């Protein structure tokens, strides 16, 4: 029950980002001559319909089953690069892009719903900002930078409460992108395993926590 409430809170929280969207749009102006602007988007129809109020809930769906994915190859490369900077492979689990997080984000920002339409603008403008920063510093697209160089760009925007005033908008983008990356990653089997989630299996009885654990926590 808590999880679904949290979902709603996420959606409500994201709605508060409307002003950021307009400000972020200005970052397109910072693109330097010759820098890689986002390529043309295919098949993005703002009037496209969603999955409707009575979809089949039993079928599993591939990303893009209800509306086309719209990121181009260059954007997908950047999306994967940033997702893996946020969730890299480690001893516990693979990286975000290795378990389909780019498709998840592409599906999210390609969705026809008002919330996702807003998120789309924030993400695409954030991508443009990242590439503009990368070009400015290293004359290369963000996705081709080394991790240390990427961190130089992302460190100042990774915590909005500490971001400089003129970096608040990219910091809002980074926070949202981290949320989306975590959403895409931890809802996969690999993400659940990383967290050692062992539920969602039918049991004949429910025993509660081990007494030993409760004693250790001084809750027994």
């Amino acid at each position: 029950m808590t999880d679904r409430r949290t979902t709603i809170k996420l959606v409500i929280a994201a709605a508060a980002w409307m002003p950021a969207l307009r400000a972020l749009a200005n970052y397109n102006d910072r693109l330097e001559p010759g820098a890689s602007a986002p390529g043309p988007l295919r098949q993005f129809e703002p009037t496209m319909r969603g999955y409707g109020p009575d979809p089949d809930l039993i079928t599993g769906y591939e990303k893009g089953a209800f509306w086309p994915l719209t990121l181009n190859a260059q954007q997908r490369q950047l999306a994967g690069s940033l997702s893996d900077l946020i969730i890299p492979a480690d001893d516990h689990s693979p990286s975000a892009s290795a378990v389909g997080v780019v498709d998840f984000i592409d599906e999210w920002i390609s969705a026809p719903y008002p919330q996702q339409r807003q998120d789309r603008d924030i993400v695409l403008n954030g991508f443009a900002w990242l590439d503009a920063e990368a070009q400015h510093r290293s004359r290369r697209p963000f996705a081709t930078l080394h991790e240390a160089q990427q961190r130089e760009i992302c460190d100042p925007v990774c915590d909005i409460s500490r971001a400089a005033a003129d970096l608040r908008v990219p910091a809002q983008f980074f926070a949202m992108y981290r949320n989306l990356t975590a959403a895409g990653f931890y809802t996969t089997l690999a993400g659940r395993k990383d967290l050692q989630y062992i539920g969602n299996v039918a049991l004949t009885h429910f025993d509660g926590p081990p007494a030993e654990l409760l004693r250790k926590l001084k809750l027994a």
Partner: protein
Amino acid sequence: MPFVTASTQRGPYDVVIVGSGAGGGQTAYTLCMEGVRVLMLEAGREYTPARESPMFQTPDMAPLGDAGTPDKNKGFYDCTVDGGWDVPGEPYVSVPDKWGAHFTWWRARMLGGRTNHWGRISLRNGPYDFKPRSRDGLGFDWPISYDDVAPYYDKVEMLIGVYGGEKSLENTPAGPGDTLLPPPKPIVSDHLLMKYAPRFGIPVLPGRRAVLTRAQDHRTIPGKLHPGNLRAQKILAEAMRKRSPCLWATPCGRGCAVAANYQSTTVHLPPALETGNLDVITHAMVYEVTVGKDGKANGVRFVDATTGRHEHVSARIVVLGASACETARILLNSKSGPFPNGVGNSSGLVGRYVLDTVGSSVTGQIPLLESLPPLNEDAADGLQVYVPWWLYQQQLAHKLPFPRGYHIEYGGGKHMPSVGTFAGLEWLTGGSYGRKFKEDARRYYGSFINFDGRGAMVPNDDCYVEIDPKVKDRFGIPVLRFHWQWGDYEQRQAAHMQETFGEVIEAMGGRLQTPVVTDPVKAIAPGGYMIHEVGGTIMGADARSSVTNKWSQTWDVPNLFVADGGVFPYNADKNPTLTIMALAWRMSDHILDRMRRREI
């Protein structure tokens, strides 16, 4: 062939019931088991949980990871069909359209209505809850007492299967004890509450939800519920055997394919259909109760949503269980010469005194719960324990700035990660990303607890529905216009929730992401958010001050009854569904009694 259409119906029927949820389902069950011929009308489509419930599907199998959207407000896998805060083609008006005065109205268009998705929390109203005015001078007393309803709480609990504890507290009756199933074992975060709440004088009881924690006793319960009726006993025993106990996995709100929780579609309707006495017409959008020259209701009119045709069905008795506000809408739209203000509305009170539940929540992060070993904490989908209201004596002594109480729905645990589980962690992580973020996710996963306060509302004159003079739905039926304003009492109660929850979380060593909201106006959730709206056809002691009598029968039309939450003259903190069912059963027994005496 129980599912029929306007042209294949097999009348004459004794009773037509509008709605198939908690009230309509219970009424159909009780009447059909006693041989009454019933026609049920449902505005939405047929719905079959055994075939349609997405149990065990993981979020990555759904579009947008199961996030809520305008199409599916509570997530892709929530079982609500053709419903939510907005139903396409079926608008409603809320004036003035501003925060605080706005009311949002959750509906479902499906067989079983909102019982398919509900939280299944099943609390009994207590003795004070039926006589609130006698206790503190506010609002209205019910024309019935706890003792009148208690036998029906017993019956409903045995029929649908409710887990809970045997201990009663002040105004918090457990019932006789043998009507309940054993509660689930508490999880780690529950033990935290059990340790710290007593330091504040806050009691913790086992939760009460309509979930089978073990198989129902199909040998003895049918005899208790249907004494002397061997056929009903046999049908119920068979229906109970077909229900499986809880699998301790997958959220109830997705629907339950094995019928381990209560949904009208898995518990009330199957045995009612098995009797052969129930016919159902789906896609039937009812808009009018028709009344004959004798002043008695003789049927209802509806639009067949599949053909657009207007139809009429007849019966000796009409029962409205369309949900509190929809029932008021039908009555108000039933205008004719003798009833210029709508049927049943000689008091002018149809649509008046709509009530909701006060809601306010605080989430805390608990260091003690960080980095726990792997635990399966799915349990029965929450509410292993809860907190009943505990400050009755302080209120009696006027030591609190609000007269009525709240209970706490408490939750925590390592639930299946959703799209929101790791959103907005910066306040704990300092904005980590990379390997550190993954470490942080493992550390904080399952370390959050949630306090949801759910409180009573005193009825007030500013909360009502009426028919909008202009707007019509896609069927051409005039729609409802909502008026809403929380009272000071409710707002102060919400602020008390915030302060209390914050104190308990801090005592636990926990942290709050943001300070608690102490401004009463901002502490309370908007009207309708709790999806507990009741009232609008309130029951009372006389025809001047109420719409229905103590049998849920309209004062004006003797063969017209209301089976849903519309009859509530007061909404205690207790979630209304169990009481809706108890009152519907009681009403149905009264109908049976009157039919046997040939009075209706």
